[in-house]
């Protein structure tokens, strides 16, 4: 078989597209507060659900979340996983814990790290609080929070956190 007859399994055509990404006006309001060390969720005017981080709309009701809801940096672990595989470019050394964090007063959770605890002791419902970077390092990012660490408060039954329609 000559080179011309050899079937070609693939061809490479690299694609590189650049975008000027915008977070949206609602997320911009949220990130401006995060820069100041505040976590401000947004509430739905109809069903009252509180979103953090907010994306600008209540996907349940299809309306803008125009109510600002200041929250604390305390909450509980809604779910978690232990990461054992190193991810290229990620400076965190496995094993480490990624958790869905449900802040007090919020109706959705977001992903963040759990540290300052023996991994074996981590459990759903455990109370946690944000550990912030030094103030001079704060930017428009949830990375201003280094991780969440356990606090000495009784566990929460996460089943009770389920959103109740009013």
């Amino acid at each position: 078989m000559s080179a011309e007859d050899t079937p070609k399994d693939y061809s490479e055509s690299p694609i590189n597209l650049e975008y000027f990404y915008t977070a949206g006006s609602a997320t911009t309001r949220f990130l401006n507060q995060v820069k100041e060390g505040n976590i401000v969720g947004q509430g739905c005017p109809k069903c009252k659900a509180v979103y953090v981080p907010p994306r600008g709309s209540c996907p349940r009701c299809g309306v803008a979340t125009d109510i600002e809801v200041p929250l604390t940096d305390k909450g509980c672990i809604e779910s978690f996983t232990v990461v054992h595989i190193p991810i290229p470019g990620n400076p965190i050394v496995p094993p480490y814990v990624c958790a869905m964090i449900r802040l007090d007063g919020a109706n959705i959770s977001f992903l963040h790290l759990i540290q300052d605890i023996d991994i074996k002791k981590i459990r759903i419902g455990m109370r946690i609080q944000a550990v912030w970077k030094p103030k001079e390092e704060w930017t428009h990012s949830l990375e201003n929070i280094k991780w969440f660490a356990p606090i000495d408060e009784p566990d929460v039954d996460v089943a009770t956190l389920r959103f109740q329609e009013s």
Partner: protein
Amino acid sequence: MKRVAIVGYAQHPILKNAGALNEVELIMPVVHQLFNDLGISQKDIDFTCSGSCDYLQGAAFAFVEGLSAIQTNPPIKESHVEMDAAWAMYESMLKIQMGDAETALIYGFGKSSPGDLDAIISLQMDPYYISPLWPDRVSLAALQARVLLNQNIISQEQMLATVMEARANSKNNKNALITDLIDESDYLNNPMVSSPLNKLDCPPISDGSSAMIIASEEKAYEFTDHPIWIEGIDHRIESSNLGSRNLATSNTLQASIKQLNLKNIKFDVAELHTQFSHEVPFLKFLLNLQDVPTNLSGGPLVGNVMMCAGLDAVGKTYESLKENQLTHGLAHATSGPCLQHNMLVHLEAKK
């Protein structure tokens, strides 16, 4: 065929750069406006279908995020086309024809400002032979413009007239992005982007969204006293290989004209999804619209929201028929390079 009517249409003002407003924040106002105008809510909608392109946003499954603009509780039946929302309307028509829905909400959205539209659009081409060459959308359109000029199917004067007319007509369109008038010397002194197309022959980079509601005959009169009926709708696509197409005509449009039996209909108004000036005289010729007021909204040359402009042609035709008490309207939507894929929609107001 079940009879289906357009009962409402809303369009976001077309923006050069929506800035911090994201797609969801662009969609919500038009959907809410439509619901408010008709005095209805998502509960009155059986089927929801959107049209958008994830490449515009630069995020996989970005269209799913778009759904956050819609009330989805209790759960809704919905779908999406990675195309202009005119095709979302087509899918909604089918859904109603099949008896799965009596009413449908259609919305389209697109922001062209965040990325490089020329590069993005070239990715719709054949991925093996054409996309790796990164042909930009203006150059592709220019290929067809050159063929049409060389074969005397259209003239440079018609292109100039189209550009001037589009801008003059923008006064009829409160959402138009480009509204300043130009004269002949402005046009002739504009440098070529891709010969024979200069900057004024091309549509502006635009951000925006639109929404429409269609309904079966049973439901249409519950929503409005003035439904506009979709008398005919047909879409056909040509080869993705530019070299195997005859760019001097459109076999698929001819077939659609035949299928919809448009030959003997005297249209009162037409809105064409013509993104480049040469496409207007070309389509007017093919569709026999020489004496028909066309693109009274200014068309895509005064505002061209990607994935919306086709639906907007249908919406603007609907508005024209309704507001001016006309009878027959023709709307056209397109997709792909050089008018590769075309949809014709025959709208009729029953007196």
